């Protein structure tokens, strides 16, 4: 049950932006479990579900979904405020692939039956989704994926392997990009399939990463039979559907929140290490500080695009590069001032705000996941700079 039940307006969209912000903020602060603020690692479902259910019960799980599908139907501006408030309070990202990725895709491309069947189960927490896109030999070149789905009667038979599947061990459903036409050109033989993780033939194997965390998994498919009705959209058109959702990811990965969090930790570490007043550290900190402020200004310009309901262009990839590399630089400064403490596995003195190595390691893959920064630079070169 929610700790506070303020008087809820019938339509949150009707609130002034600032009033809306304070309304959201108050509820988050009253309801978010203190013990999982700013978690150092991505949380598992068991750690996270109480918050998921709180949001679900409140009806705030899916701020961006239209009201007729059980969402809050917030305007773009208010969705952004909602996200900002979650980030401000250091709320953990929940098991949100159903909320962020699959829901919007089904709303846009799914059949009425699929919408009626799956969306309520996301809202209730009955279905927890994960995303099966990357494969061992298809990372940057995702469109070369080879996991196959072959129609056999009224079922697709799926064989292959996915990798880097976030929190697959917590999910009971997975949405997949599969190859349904091996003869077609790369992007043109790919379809979008919904698969119950309890189907025989699926094996999940967690991957331990440099954080010693099992956030990512490999998922193996050995003659997994999937009802034909679980195909979303048109056969062999899965690529375009999946791609249409990626601009969300690019702005999400460009959010200044990681760098802002790290900069605060850097200050705390500098104070602990006695270098806060040091001139050399000071100018390095000032540089990070200005870099972050300028990133926030640039991020705000893309948020403005969203607020006006316009599509994000390829240039949003700039944010992802700038944010990930700033996050990395901040953590590199942390490592330098931490000196011998830089090697420690656990936070210093049991204070999780003093965890240089943890943040440093956490920052490493930000230039790899979500499309490596090399791929982002290719995208900008071709699509923004229009180089040949």
């Amino acid at each position: 049950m929610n700790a506070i039940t303020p008087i809820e307006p019938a339509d949150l969209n009707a609130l002034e932006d600032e009033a809306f912000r304070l309304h959201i903020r108050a509820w988050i602060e009253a309801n978010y479990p203190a013990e999982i603020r700013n978690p150092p690692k991505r949380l598992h479902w068991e750690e996270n579900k109480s918050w998921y259910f709180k949001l679900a019960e409140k009806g705030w799980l899916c701020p961006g979904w239209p009201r007729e599908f059980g969402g809050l139907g917030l305007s773009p501006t208010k969705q952004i405020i909602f996200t900002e408030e979650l980030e401000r309070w250091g709320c953990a990202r929940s098991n949100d692939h159903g909320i962020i990725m699959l829901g919007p895709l089904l709303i846009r491309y799914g059949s009425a039956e699929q919408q009626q069947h799956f969306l309520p189960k996301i809202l209730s927490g009955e279905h927890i989704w994960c995303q099966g896109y990357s494969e061992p030999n298809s990372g940057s070149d995702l469109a070369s994926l080879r996991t196959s789905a072959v129609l056999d009667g009224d079922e697709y038979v799926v064989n292959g392997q996915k990798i880097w599947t976030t929190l697959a061990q917590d999910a009971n459903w997975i949405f997949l990009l599969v190859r349904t036409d091996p003869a077609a050109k790369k992007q043109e033989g790919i379809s979008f399939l919904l698969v119950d993780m309890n189907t025989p033939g699926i094996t999940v194997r967690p991957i331990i990463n440099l954080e010693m965390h099992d956030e990512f998994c490999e998922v193996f498919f050995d003659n997994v039979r999937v009802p034909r009705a679980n195909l979303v959209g048109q056969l062999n058109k899965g690529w375009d559907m999946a791609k249409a959702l990626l601009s969300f990811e690019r702005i999400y990965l460009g959010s200044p929140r990681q760098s802002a969090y790290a900069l605060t930790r850097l200050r705390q570490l500098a104070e602990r290490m006695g270098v806060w007043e040091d001139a050399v550290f000071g100018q390095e900190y000032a540089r990070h500080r200005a870099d972050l402020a300028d990133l926030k200004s640039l991020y705000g310009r893309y948020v403005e695009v969203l607020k006006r309901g316009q599509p994000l262009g390829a240039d949003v990839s700039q944010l992802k590069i700038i944010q990930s590399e700033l996050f990395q630089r901040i953590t590199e400064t942390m490592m330098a001032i931490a000196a011998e403490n830089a090697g420690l596995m656990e936070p210093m003195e049991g204070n999780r705000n003093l965890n240089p190595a943890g943040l440093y390691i956490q920052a490493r893959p930000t230039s790899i996941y979500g499309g490596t920064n090399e791929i982002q630079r290719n995208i900008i070169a071709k699509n923004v700079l229009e180089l040949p």
Partner: protein
Amino acid sequence: MSSAAGIAPWSDDQAESARMVRDSAAGFLDVARARALRGTMPGFSADAWREMGALGWIGLLVPEEAGGSGLSMVEMCALAEELGRGLAPEPLIPCVLSAMLLAEAGEREVLAQLLAGEAVVLTAWQDRANTLAVCTDAAATRRFVPMAAGATHVLLPVGDALHLVNARDCEITTEATHDGGHLGTLRPGAGRAIGRADVAAALDRAALATAAYLLGGMESGYAMTLAYLNTRQQFGKIIGTFQALQHKAVDTKLPIALTRAAVEEAAMDPTRAACSRAKARASEAAMIVGQNCVQLSGGIGYTDQYDVGLYLRKAMVLAPAFGGAALHRARFMDLTPETEDA
């Protein structure tokens, strides 16, 4: 090239007003004009100066009741950006600064000449390099006065007290600068006190406008560089197809995007911290972008005849003007409270 970097946080009215000012600068975009004026004395065109007066630019930030255009830093930055594209050598930003100060002090006669482009009033505010502080010694030699040879009058702040001096009563020596202009060292003659003004606040605006000028220059030099990458061939290929050059081009784009974000946000709300952050970014970015553009242009980029080098030369002069990156970054840092990030 698409120069998309999101949308400026301006109202529709502001955006429209900025666009009109931009359009009015169309006649000053030709770099050949700036090139021809290099090394001349006083280094800029008297005709162009009068035209700038007629367009209302010199008084852009002066209230309408004082004879100015009564516009804001949004329009000023838009204008400065266009002048940066054309590398216009006229001392518009220094004189916009002087006009603000004259207006604030209540001086009207010289202000009117200045706004009309008939006078050139330069504010000699600094007595040494690498400072943001206004000189407080009336007798001190003033340094780094841009385009000093063209001054008709000199405005001498002593703290917030302003003295107006005829240029011919000052002893002025000049040193040539890489952009084809010059900087003056000035021993002030006797002038008259004309009142007081918030000199530091006006300098913030001059710094921000200079950041915008640098931004325009960066974008133009960068556009030339992209065009070169799109045409030059080596090894049987357009060199813009080489991934290493593509990525260097992207890395040159990023500081430009950050500069635009910082400048346009500051233009809307020109607090001292915002102005400093924008100038710090622009000063640093202009050097990086200039260097990279020269590098990406290869041998031709190192010739004086090729315009890309002119943008780098301008950056060398304007990056430190009204305070360089380190000074402004430190001031931004001092002025900005810690955020409450969790």
